[in-house]
């Protein structure tokens, strides 16, 4: 499930999207948690200027902490490492790239877009 979203998409169909915060509320290479209804989302702004949204729940520890992990890269892939047990996830797809010997578990991802300085997320049919 790779969703590549461009800013155009948000402008084209603003109705499906939920505004979450201003891009300026985010910090490059440091995550922030957001509430999407009851659900906790971890938002990241990469060095390349892209916004990514993945679940804040760390599937390995059960704590909602993914937004507090260290952001980086593996090859070309933007990543976040869970601050709890250091599993590493692909921010674009949520796939776990480093399981540290555990079963692979992926993070849910949300399409994210930026329009007029506002970060939008789209609820996906799962």
């Amino acid at each position, binding site marked *: 499930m790779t969703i590549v979203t461009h800013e155009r998409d948000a402008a084209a169909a603003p109705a499906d999207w939920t505004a*979450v*915060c201003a891009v300026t*509320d*985010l*910090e*490059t*290479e*440091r995550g*922030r*948690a*957001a*509430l999407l209804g*009851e659900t*906790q989302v971890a*938002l990241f702004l*990469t*060095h390349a200027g892209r916004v990514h949204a993945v679940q804040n*729940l760390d599937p390995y*520890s*059960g*704590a*909602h*902490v993914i937004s*507090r*992990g*260290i*952001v*980086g*890269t*593996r*090859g070309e892939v*933007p*990543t976040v*490492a869970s*601050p*709890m047990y*250091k599993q*590493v996830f692909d921010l674009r797809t949520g796939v776990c790239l480093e399981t540290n010997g555990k079963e692979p578990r992926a993070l849910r991802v949300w399409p994210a877009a930026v329009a007029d300085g506002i970060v939008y997320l789209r609820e996906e049919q799962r």
Partner: protein
Amino acid sequence: MSSTGPTPPHVVVVGAGMVAHRFVESLLSRTDDAWRVTVIGEEPRHPYDRVGLTSFFAGASAEDLELDASPLADERVRFQRGTTVTRIDRDRAEVVTDRGERIGYDRLVLATGSYAARLAVDGYDHDGCFVYRTLDDVEALERFVERRSAELGRRLTGTVIGGGLLGLEAAGALQGLDVDCTVIQSSDRLMSAQLDLPAGDALRRLIEQRGIGVRTSALTTRLDADRSGRVIGLEFRDGSWERTDVVVFTVGVRPRDELARAAGLTVDARGGVAIDAGCDTSDPRILAIGEVASFGGQCVGLVAPGYAMAEVAAARLLGLEASFGGFDVSTKLKLSGVDVASFGDAFAETPGALDVVYADPVAGVYKKLVLSDDAKTLLGGILVGDASAYGSLRPLVGGALGGDPVAYLMPREGVAAPTGELPDEALVCSCNSVTAGGIRSAVHDEGCSDVKAIKACTKAGAACGSCVGMITKLLGSELAKTGAALSNSLCEHFAMSRRQLFDAVRVSGLSTFSAVIDRFGTGRGCDICKPVLASILSTLTGRHVLDGENATLQDTNDHVMANMQKDGSYSVVPRIAGGEITPEGLLVIGQVAQDFGLYTKITGGQRIDMFGARLEQLPDIWKRLVDAGFESGHAYGKSLRTVKSCVGSTWCRYGVQDAVGMAVQLELRYRGLRSPHKIKLGVSGCARECAEARGKDVGVIATEAGWNMYVGGNGGFTPRHAVLLAEGLDDAGLLQAIDRFLMYYVFTADRLQRTAPWFEDLEGGIDELRRVILDDSLGICADLDAAMARHVENYEDEWKATLDDPEKLRRFASFVNAPTTPDPSLAYTAERGQARPATAEDRDAGVLIAGTTLEVRR
């Protein structure tokens, strides 16, 4: 003169040294014509490798040193050894020998080399005083040492006068003969012709480490002898006198231009037969090459320019175009275990020249590159302690460096200097004029597959040998065409160890993550390299953990300055220095814990931990604590944790010193010090050791005589007792020793390496550590002291600084779109009168408590 006359032309060569040998070889290999060559040499030997003379002491025989026999065995050559030319009769075009023979020439080549000079002081020719130039010299030296030490029945003490390249080689040779030896240098540093002062100092330390004494700014005024005429001592200008049993002069060389002078040839004011770029002297029938020749007012005592002249002379005698391009005065010291090289414009004399310097006094390394004013062209450099880059740098002199200068200066296991891309025309072996292209073709066209084959095939590496490293490298990349992976890489983003990265950051002066990774790494980092860089930048720049880009490098604990617990909440540990706390302090902590509903526990580090704080509560909690005078306890950092104490002499009936006072002092001094791993100290008031100080990175135990200091202890996974470093220290001495120990560790340890394993890896163990810290054997103590002074000076409580900065406080919002809403997933249950995280079963059973003020029934 044409090579095809009716009678074959006759060349007479005076001198049979290395350059003469090369000349004959070059001449004869370039032509099959019937030349006649007469070589007259004073030494009663076949020409030999003077550059390799010192290997005589390592067991090489006179035969081993002989140069290739074939040129002089050519039927066109007549070689007269043991014969001295005493006069040139230019009118009759003849030379006269000491045997009275007259030999006519069509062309005369002077290759008479140099004399080794002696110091013009009284007693310079006592028995036991030597020069270091010929095989005869070294044979005589060896015989003398053997005889004299047998006579005296003890090890000899030797003195080398002259601290240049040759002097250091001679000192190494004396040491090889079991002589305790000291090098005397009149100027302020060793190798003053090639090295600047800091490089000379670095070299001095390396030489001293090898057990060779060094005395600089020392002028010898007299040599004394015993009644038998053997040297016994020397006197210096300052009036001091040293005993010595053997003396070697290495105070320079003088060109042997006496024949030319007497024959009225133009001789340079500073000595040496003046030649032009064609190696012609003022008499068109006479050429001069090698050390005796003065070109542009300069004689140079190196073999490479001599060889170049030999080639020019040979080519021109055959009517070919050739000219001498000037001197390359690059040099590398051939003293095993001591790496020193100097090349090009080492003193940055070119107008506008810039230099980039890398100094690692810990490792005894000093390196300098001299660049053109636009920093693009390499002009020269100095390498001391690690000259591994010499081979790759020297060919680049005068050309584009084609890479980051710092990359060439890093430690040898560090960033691979971008040498693989040497252009074909780059000169790899300057002794024998072999280019990178020449070596490539030897590999591909001639099938050479090892250095020996390349030496045989191209002569590269067959003279001074300093290019062998470069040849090996080129060979390897040509053969394999694969880049070998570097094993000590931190992670995929940095191909270097923490220590190397530390050095890279220190030398480059970079202060942000982006700048460092752009220059020394790839990508955007990860959870391994980012915290490492955060720690390094903290030591080197002393800025706040959350300043600018620093914030993105921190592990979550450092990022929010608290310890993450299993449910994503945090624990809060205020500093309780030395474990000493007032009742008022206890009340504040109790009140805060109660108001925020936090679980409290006394830690294993003698302080109080409050658990269950939510991200958005941290600033409020800390506001209360800071207002009451508490500060961060750094329970989260790779930094100083605690200094554990016992109650000591203040109360304890056995205590002999104020353990608590010292523990508090130490904790306040080192608080906030970021390091490769956490650091813990302990102070006990007597040998009963109630503070378990010997389980700490630094343990201090009081005695009647003062403090005993132990280092490298560890609890945890692999317990280890700390080892005694020093005894009976006073307070100031203790602080200084701990300052140095900790900084030495911070500068050099690997990522997540505590002091115990670091100490285990330290070469030379506790004795070496003592020398470094207490005797300043590496000359780094001033640096370590300064770094610690900077730390102490710059310390600020990072929680207080955060509370004062609204920008930093933004990151404590629980949700970006609901900043004060608690994490809805947190749930607690009561146990033994306090809250603890709810388990899945607790949640199912619904026995949950929550909220910032929670009621706990007793």
